[in-house]
């Protein structure tokens, strides 16, 4: 059979098999499995058929639980079905999986194995999720590489049909799911030859049909359940045989042979490692190396993990073996050992084979697993008493379980070209590197591998590409540590990262810089210069941004840098490489039309001419060293732990550095000065009208306004600007002098989005292009603004009690959410920041998983912070699906403690003083003054309690703060509120509990990459709605209103900020559930975020986004609870839709459908408006009580 090579990642490899063998695919997005569903959707959307000529039906569900239910139903009714998932998603599928297995249903699911959230969430890879599926009754087959992800997917689908037991096929998240590699593709003929038609027929015969009715899913009693449960045993006994048979058939068809347990290494090995997953590849390499050095070692690679076949396993372990180390990529606290270890121990015990077996953990959350670590494990096995239950890959300096390893040991062969490239997320580095791998792997018939590391910021994100090219298949499943090419596509990264750490001696160092070849070295930080000299690096420079700009590609330097890579690597003859690059450009962008291709070609042509070898002097030239990662005034924890993580050296931190329970200090983004803006707002006080709209809209709290007591200006830097405060509402400053007003940008925290300038209403009368703030190149401003910001941040905030309820005044409150890693121009964070300003000092936050939890809680630094009194939002993330319930729990706890405190207070009345007790119990805490007064009373109470004897006083002392009103906020996106968390959200609203629910509605799953949600509006293209969504957006607000006791508001800050503020205040003051649905523009909408507010306004003006407040309190006064805050539409939906890529791409693809959807959107909006208008006219007449 002819072989065909493809360059794909593990997800694509597995999905290509699953799609061809399925009729129904029900999915829900979750990292890192999402691409499998997305690719399937794309293939089906493009009419790609399965093996039997039918286009698989793809259905996106509201959660993985929903997907599993749909899968179960599809299987019952006789459709070949698959699904893809990971981590928490797999957990949600477990109940259905038990059913599917219990009913002996052929089915194969594919899992990109990922950590389960415990002390923290992690999107990265380990086996803790699939281990949770062990008791489901699924067979489990594990792939270790991209090639295997394809091959064993096929084996799984084949075996399940034969065995009738469902299969969970898994491979390591990211390391395999996202590694791009050249593999031998599996053709349709081979698949067809594998799958038994008779097995499919047998499956179909068992389907539910009224033509031959049966009943499944009965309830059984003690008399029969047990026996009936045991009736499946023979099917499980037969599985290993079916799998091995499928593997053998596969080998005949493809030449690639697998066994249930594959052994590699010396046939007479004495020391053997057992493991499964991508780590096996690193073990394989190390074993080969050690064997060559005469060491008697080997490894057993586990393929079929469940059912675990002890005989087959033992048969794979050489009879010469004396000691085994079983490596688990998971942790089960409290267990006698991790699962694979326990299986091995049990197998040997049952077989009576006396071998020394130790267990160890490695690679949790994609922790690196290198040949050096593998060697350390083999070395440990040499000992008489090797350590058991060890860890490898970390330094456990607390319980001393970790093994040490030799960092210097490495196995990179000489004939493999290795490159490491640092880029910014938005510059196209990863895309072009993927292209490069395809060029080399596919077109030049060489083996290639690419793996990409991203940081967790959504703006100014750093990407690190690790590439390998060589003559043989590449098994190195770990990062490149010694590269012959190191490229830095963004020079400022040299200030923050040890870019040249991975440069091998004599390597080429390519830098994208505007400095000339003879000067560039002088501008390198001292440490970098030293590395260039010490490692005798050849130094090359190109002004990539200039080349790209001149070619009309803005900052998209990908093709420019790609050309440079090929030139420096010499991996292909240059002419051939250029031809491939051009071909790649045509393939990637040709669909956009000739212009993009033309400009890229121009950039390619200019790149070579602009690539120069830079002059390297023989010694250092006195350049400055890198600035410290955090300033010395940062807290100790930040210095020791956070800074290390920020510098990209978190791997070096020992166990003792960490909190034991996942509890971290807040307010750490202030120490991470990322300096990613090229332009920042520049203030012209002569024009400013002090409206504070800029501060309100800033997604990063990087532009702030403050009232300044002139007295405190004595030590102000000369460049610090203030102006007279124009309003009278704050009276005089503490010194008695009239207030000054200051507007200040944090130059290193601003992301340069331009939203502030866009909303600024104050224009120069003579030159209206000039506003009170204009975006301006940062370089000339940076130093002065740094000093100004430092001074500004030391100024006291005005008293909260003095701050009026209006919008302008709200911006004199300290933001307690700042400098997050959210996208530049994010539409969500301005709402969160405003909430933090209004209620942050007494706020608990339950945060659903999603964008908000990533920019809100992803280390190294987090944006929720505290004020100078030490108060601020207390934040926690539970899950994606349970957030409303999580927040409700917080509310219940708050109330329980408040009630306990009140009851204790009453009991202690005599010793505390009746007047104080009365005041504390009856305090009105409806405004800032009331809260402040209560806080004062609590201080007084505590003073009294300190001197009071008895256990109750002690208890009350601990609980006294509960007497101050708390504000519970439940925050999440539309994926949570409309889809996966809706059931809980609905229930929480129905409880009547006093919680505030803020839904940041981007109308799409933003965090996982733009999948459609039930909030996606008509006409928008999204993943799983590529042709444009035809069904109207779910009216979450109307559903909530139907309860009658829920405060509901629909807001759009960019359209009417005062309404947002009013809604937030009303919602918080409402003593029951409040729901605020906030329009949030998002990069997933496909336009410049700078124009986010204009689009919000158009959304409201066209009626596409309704703006209203529904306040149940108004019922009591005989008013209609619903108030519409937007007039009838002034403009057409079309005017709104035409500006956004998500709608526009529908029009470009299918103009007729676009027109239909525009009309449908207009009709939908009009109908909704009509309903609201009627509701807004509903007055409930109350019967007057007889006097």
């Amino acid at each position: 059979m002819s072989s065909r090579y493809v360059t794909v990642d593990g997800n694509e490899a597995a999905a290509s098999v699953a799609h061809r063998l399925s009729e129904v695919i029900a999915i829900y997005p979750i990292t890192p499995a999402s691409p499998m569903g997305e690719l399937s959707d794309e293939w089906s959307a493009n009419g790609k058929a399965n093996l039997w000529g039918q286009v698989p039906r793809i259905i996106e569900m509201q959660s993985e639980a929903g997907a599993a239910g749909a899968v179960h139903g599809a299987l019952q009714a006789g459709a070949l079905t698959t699904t893809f998932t990971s981590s928490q998603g797999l957990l949600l599928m477990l109940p259905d999986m038990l059913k599917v297995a219990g009913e002996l249903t052929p089915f194969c699911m594919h899992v990109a194995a990922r950590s389960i959230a415990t002390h923290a969430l992690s999107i990265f890879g380990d086996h803790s999720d699939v281990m949770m599926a062990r008791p489901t009754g699924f067979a489990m087959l594990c792939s270790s590489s991209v090639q295997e992800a394809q091959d064993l997917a096929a084996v799984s689908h084949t075996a399940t049909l034969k065995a009738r037991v469902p299969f969970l096929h898994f491979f390591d998240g990211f390391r395999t799911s996202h590694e791009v590699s050249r593999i031998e593709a599996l053709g349709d003929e081979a698949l067809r030859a594998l799958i038994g038609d008779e097995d499919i027929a047998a499956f179909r015969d068992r389907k539910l049909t009224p033509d031959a009715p049966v009943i499944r899913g009965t309830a059984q009693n003690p008399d029969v359940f047990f026996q009936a449960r045991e009736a499946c045993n023979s099917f499980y006994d037969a599985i290993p045989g079916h799998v091995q048979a499928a593997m053998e058939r596969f080998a005949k068809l493809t030449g690639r042979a697998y066994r249930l347990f594959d052994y590699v290494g010396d046939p007479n090995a004495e020391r053997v490692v057992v493991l499964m997953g991508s780590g096996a590849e690193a073990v394989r390499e190390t074993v080969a190396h050690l064997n060559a050095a005469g060491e008697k070692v080997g490894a057993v690679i586990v393929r079929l993990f469940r059912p675990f076949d002890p005989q087959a396993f033992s048969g794979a372990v050489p009879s010469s073996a004396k000691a085994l180390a079983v490596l688990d990529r998971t942790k089960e606290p409290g267990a006698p050992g991790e699962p694979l270890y326990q299986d091995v121990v049990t197998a040997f015990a049952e077989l009576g084979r006396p071998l020394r077996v130790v267990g160890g953990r490695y690679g949790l959350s994609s922790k690196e697993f290198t040949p050096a670590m593998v060697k350390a494990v083999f070395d440990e096995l040499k000992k008489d008493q090797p350590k058991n239950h060890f860890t490898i890959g970390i330094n456990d300096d607390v319980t001393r379980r970790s093994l040490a390893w030799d960092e210097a040991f490495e196995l990179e062969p000489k004939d493999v070209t290795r490159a490491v490239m640092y880029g910014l997320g938005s510059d196209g580095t990863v895309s072009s590197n993927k292209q490069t791998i395809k060029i080399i792997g596919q077109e030049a018939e060489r083996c290639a591998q690419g793996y990409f590391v991203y940081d967790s910021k959504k703006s100014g994100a750093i990407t690190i590409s690790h590439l390998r090219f060589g003559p043989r298949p590449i098994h190195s499943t770990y990062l490149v540590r010694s590269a012959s090419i190191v490229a830095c596509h963004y020079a400022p990264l040299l200030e923050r990262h040890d870019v040249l750490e991975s440069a091998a001696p004599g390597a080429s160092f390519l830098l994208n810089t505007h400095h000339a070849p003879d000067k560039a070295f002088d501008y390198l930080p001292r440490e970098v210069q030293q590395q260039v000299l010490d490692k005798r690096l050849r130094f090359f420079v190109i002004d990539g941004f200039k080349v790209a700009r001149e070619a009309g590609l803005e900052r998209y330097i990908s093709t420019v840098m790609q050309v440079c890579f090929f030139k420096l690597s010499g991996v292909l003859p240059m002419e051939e490489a250029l031809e491939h690059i051009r071909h790649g450009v045509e393939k990637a962008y040709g669909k956009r039309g000739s212009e993009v291709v033309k400009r890229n070609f121009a950039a390619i042509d200019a790149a070579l001419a602009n690539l120069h070898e830079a002059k390297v002097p023989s010694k250092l030239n006195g350049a400055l060293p890198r600035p410290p990662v955090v300033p010395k005034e940062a807290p100790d924890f930040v210095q020791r732990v956070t800074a290390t993580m920020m510098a990209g050296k978190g791997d070096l931190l020992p166990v003792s550095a960490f909190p034991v329970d996942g509890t971290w200090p807040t307010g750490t983004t202030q120490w991470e000065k990322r300096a990613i803006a090229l332009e920042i707002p520049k203030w012209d006080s002569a024009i400013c009208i002090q409206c504070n709209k800029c501060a309100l809209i800033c997604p990063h709290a990087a532009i702030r306004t403050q009232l300044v007591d002139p007295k405190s200006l004595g030590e102000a830097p000369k460049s610090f600007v203030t102006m007279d405060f124009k309003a009278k509402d704050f009276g005089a400053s503490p010194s008695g002098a009239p207030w000054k007003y200051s507007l200040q940008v944090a130059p290193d925290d601003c992301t340069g989005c331009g939203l502030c300038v866009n909303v600024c209403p104050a224009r120069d009368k003579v030159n209206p292009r000039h506003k009170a703030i204009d975006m301006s190149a940062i370089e000339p401003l940076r130093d002065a603004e740094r000093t100004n910001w430092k001074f500004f941040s030391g100024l006291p905030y005005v008293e909260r009690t003095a701050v009026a309820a209006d919008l302008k005044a709200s911006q004199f409150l300290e933001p307690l959410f700042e400098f997050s890693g959210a996208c530049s121009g994010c539409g969500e964070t301005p709402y969160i920041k405003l909430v933090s300003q209004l209620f942050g000092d007494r706020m608990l936050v339950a945060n659903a998983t999603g964008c908000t939890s990533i920019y809100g809680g992803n280390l190294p630094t987090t944006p929720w912070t505290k004020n100078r009194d030490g108060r601020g939002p207390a934040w926690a993330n539970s899950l994606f699906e349970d957030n409303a319930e999580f927040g409700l729990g917080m509310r219940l706890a708050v109330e329980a403690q408040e009630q306990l405190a009140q009851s204790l207070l009453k009991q202690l009345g005599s010793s505390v003083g009746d007047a104080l007790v009365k005041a504390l119990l009856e305090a009105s805490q409806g405004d800032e003054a009331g809260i402040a007064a209560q806080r004062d009373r609590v201080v007084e109470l505590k003073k009294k309690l300190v001197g009071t004897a008895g256990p109750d006083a002690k208890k009350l002392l601990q609980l006294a703060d509960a007497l101050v009103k708390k504000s519970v906020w439940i925050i999440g996106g539309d994926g949570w509120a409309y889809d996966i968390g809706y059931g809980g959200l609905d229930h929480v609203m129905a409880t009547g509990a006093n919680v505030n629910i803020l839904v940041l509605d981007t109308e799409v799953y933003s965090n996982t990459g733009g999948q459609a949600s039930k909030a996606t509006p008509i006409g928008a293209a999204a993943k799983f709605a590529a042709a444009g969504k035809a069904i109207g957006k779910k009216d979450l607000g109307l559903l909530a209103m139907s309860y009658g006791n829920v405060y509901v508001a629909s807001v759009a800050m960019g359209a009417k900020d005062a309404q947002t503020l009013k809604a937030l205040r009303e919602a918080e003051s409402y003593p029951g559930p409040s729901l605020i649905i906030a329009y949030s523009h998002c990069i997933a909408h496909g336009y410049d975020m700078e124009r986010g507010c204009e689009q919000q306004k158009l959304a409201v003006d066209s009626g596409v986004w309704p703006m209203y407040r529904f306040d149940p309190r108004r019922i009591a006064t005989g008013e209609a609870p619903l108030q519409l805050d937007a007039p009838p539409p002034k403009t057409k939906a079309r005017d709104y839709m035409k500006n956004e890529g998500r709608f526009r791409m529908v029009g470009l693809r299918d103009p007729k459908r676009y027109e239909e959807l525009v009309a449908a959107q207009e009709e939908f909006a009009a109908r909704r408006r009509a309903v609201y208008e009627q509701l807004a006219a509903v007055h409930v007449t109350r019967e007057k009580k007889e006097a």
Partner: protein
Amino acid sequence: MGADLSTTWLGLKLEHPIFPGASPLVDDLDMVRRLEDAGASCITMHSLFEEQLVAEQMAAHRHLDAWTELNAEAQGWFPATADFALGPDTYLEQIRKIREAVRIPVVGSLNGTTPGGWLEYAKLIEQAGAHALELNLYALPSDPQQAAQAIEQEQLLILRKVKAAAKIPVGVKLSPFYSSLPHFARSLEAEGVSGLVLFNRLYQPDIDPESLALSRVLHLSDPSELLLRLRWLAILSARLKVPLACSGGVHETEHALKALMAGASGVQLVSELLKNGPRRITLIRDGLRMWLDEHEYDSVHQLVGSMNLERSPDPSGYERANYVKLLQGYHR
């Protein structure tokens, strides 16, 4: 027997001189059929805009392609878009569909400002089935470094390249803003242009004093715009042989009649059709026929140019004196 209404425009023999000018009406195939049913003698496509194509492609590149591979969780934010066209495909497809839907000739239209590779689109338009091509020379010079002559030379080059790319007749739609329109028109004639359309109605932004912003409102034409066209039709038809068409300001039969008298061989309608529908073609054509019959003209040919600079009883009226005389008349 009625008068002969036939005319020749861009080398095409047309039943009569009234037809729609370049407009979005052609986007809707049903509307195109209605235009034919109403008697339109040919269809003019709206322009394929170089500027728009480029902007559209680069916007998609910037907002869709550039947002990929920057995050561990999201490889991109949009569905894969294998088959969405930002090139001229949709436009060309529409020409093909119109050709299939109607029997009257179809004139393609191409708009660009620089002599670049986009001129190849002329060939694609021809291949899609257009009978002729209207080239829209849209230039809005704002750069003081740019000399009038250089702009004109560039435009002549564009025409030359388009003519080299396509074999179908090529007309040029002009703006009124040339220092010497007759000279430039003659240069175009020398390059072999098959017709000139007077005039392009340039997009004109308005100012919103409240918001200090430019407002983008599409103003439809009104009859006041006709006079400018009449003058230049009269002048150019007297000096050149190339056929002319009037575009802008024609809303009634009488307007069409005047345009023909001033020298137009064809009369384009857009605003009138957008406002009052395709039936206006029927009414204006029939009105024209009736007028010719009533005034005992045999054909439109007799009419075309009968009131131009050369043949009108008082030709000086078209020249500068017109304004002066009007004022004198007022004072009198």
